[in-house]
């Protein structure tokens, strides 16, 4: 019930991947919201505070780092899981204050584990 109040916000502009992530997280019983651009992600977050954000870095226009910094302004230390195909994933994660990063292509099991450990840490 608590998860319904605070959704998991998944942000990625790669639609098939976004759909797969949404499916498996929903299968685990979490309430999931999605966004395909940085702007949309911030709109969703403004509507309802997310419990956690799965955030792609290479978003057009407002990129992952920009989204993360505005999320920090809105909700302080909301957990962020960085998802990126960039080779410098760890550095990017550190820059946006994310505890966890997933390097593309990743296993959905790892995504679920990361979400779980971040939510119930």
């Amino acid at each position, binding site marked *: 019930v608590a998860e319904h109040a605070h959704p998991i916000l998944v942000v990625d*502009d790669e639609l*098939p991947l976004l759909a*797969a992530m949404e499916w*498996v997280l929903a299968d685990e019983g979490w309430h999931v919201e999605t966004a395909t651009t940085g702007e*949309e992600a911030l709109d969703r977050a403004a509507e309802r505070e997310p419990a956690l954000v799965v955030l792609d870095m290479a978003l057009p*226009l407002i990129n992952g780092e920009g989204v993360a910094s505005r999320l920090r302004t809105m909700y302080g230390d909301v957990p962020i899981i960085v998802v990126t*195909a*960039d*080779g410098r994933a760890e550095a990017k994660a550190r820059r946006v204050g994310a505890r966890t990063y997933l390097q593309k*292509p990743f296993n959905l099991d790892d995504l679920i584990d990361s979400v779980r450990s971040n939510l119930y840490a």
Partner: protein
Amino acid sequence: VADERADLRAADQALRDTQARTAFLAEASNVLASSLDYETTLASVAHLAVPRIADWCGVDIVQADGTVRSLAVAHVDPTKVELARELQRRVPYDPNSPVGVPNVLRTGRPEIIREIPDELLAASISEEDLLEMVRDLGLRSSMVVPLIARGHTIGAITLVAAESGRLFTDADLDFATDLAGRAALAVDNARLYRESQELAAHQEAILQQMADGVAITDTSGHVTFRNQAAREIGSSESGHVLDDYVGNPEILTLEGEPFTAEQLPLARALRGETVTDAYWVLRHGDVETVVQGNAAPVHLPDGTLLGVVTTFRDVTAQVTLERQKNAFLSAAAHDLKTPLTSVKALAQMLLRRVERGEQVSGDVVRTGLARIDAAVDRMTRLINELLDATRIQMGTMLELNRAEHDLIALLHQAVQDCQEGTEQHRIVLEAPEMTITGLWDADRIQRVFGNLLGNAVRYSPGGIVRVRLCHHDEDGASWVAVAVMDQGPGIPAGDLAHIFERFYRGANVRDRVAGTGIGLTSAKHIVEQHGGTIEVTSELGRGTTFTVHLPVTPPATEETTSG
């Protein structure tokens, strides 16, 4: 008493002789020091010597090729000098002669003939008229002293007494040797100076000719020399000292930071280190020059530090290309990993559901597999595009697979593929005709429009992307113009001229939106190989329009029988 008087007179004469010699030496030294043109100064000394020291004075010099040249012959009477010159011309120089200049040059030891015997003259001169001429000169006594510099005999001074009737003594020889020592030193200094001048001139010519920049600094880092290439590269001007380079915002590391004293190549070289393969960036306003160079300390043989020689070249073009290639590689890897991630995630998602023993609906399976299929297609297109980019870079023409296709159908497919990737944009195709059939390389033409649409979507936040097709005839040929119009941020004017260049990416998107920088380059090649052109117009804040003009090549006309 008479003896005493005679002694006194002799002592008085000796004193006056000493005074005269000292005065002469002082005068001669002044003349020798007056100029580095030693030929002139030695001739002056010879003239100074007559008649005060001797009636005749000659100076001979060993030249670089080993031959001996008479530099000066001095006598108060010019007609007698002319006689001496004639003698020199008619009696060939004999390097093995046991007396005179050849003897002194050979042995390096002074020679004195207190009284010249007539037999000596007769032995030296075989021609009768010459001998008579010499006898008429009344030569009485002679001295020849060597000019010795750093152990080498470089010439000789000849002093001869004649009409004065004086006879040279050991004291005279000591004096002449002293004079020769001073003269030799002056000649040596002048020659060394000239050699160093020549060396410096050669070195400067070499340094100026070098394509690499060369800068020389003293021990404080102050630039004492820069060659032309160094000036063109825009290296620091003279007037700077070491402290001006450290922390200077116009001299940066490759990472864009001002240098610390620990990093600065010049400072390291001044501390004794030979620095090779260092890089630094010179920033003048907006212009950055990347420089690669070496810096080495210059020491005297005794270890004294003279300064630093720095050599460098402008590697801006190479470094820029290297950076673009790296950006391209990581963008290509990124672009390939993105659909790969979708394939993996979709496959795992379907697998999870099956493994959980859940009832998986046909719709879910169909959607998942269709998305996997589309993602694999996207990867295939990307790989083909990378292969084409490699071929283009190697200068090979693309081998078009032309076949009969409907351009409008190809456009529909490209629009549909792109629409599936975005929820923020609406892609609208405006085409007046149902079909435009021609010979096209379908994959590549689709890739061209896929690229243009992909850019339109990637670089604009949302809204309508319009694809407008016009069909017209020109000079009897059939043409289509396809415009792809977005409502994005536009392309800065300075970038517009370069956007079809390989790896080139607009300044306003370079660091924000991932991209390989090859899409437009290969689009241009594909269009041009179809006989068409591609052009771009853009307005900042309003949007960008790419227009592709393609000739419609009709399918080979077959003999058709109709009706």
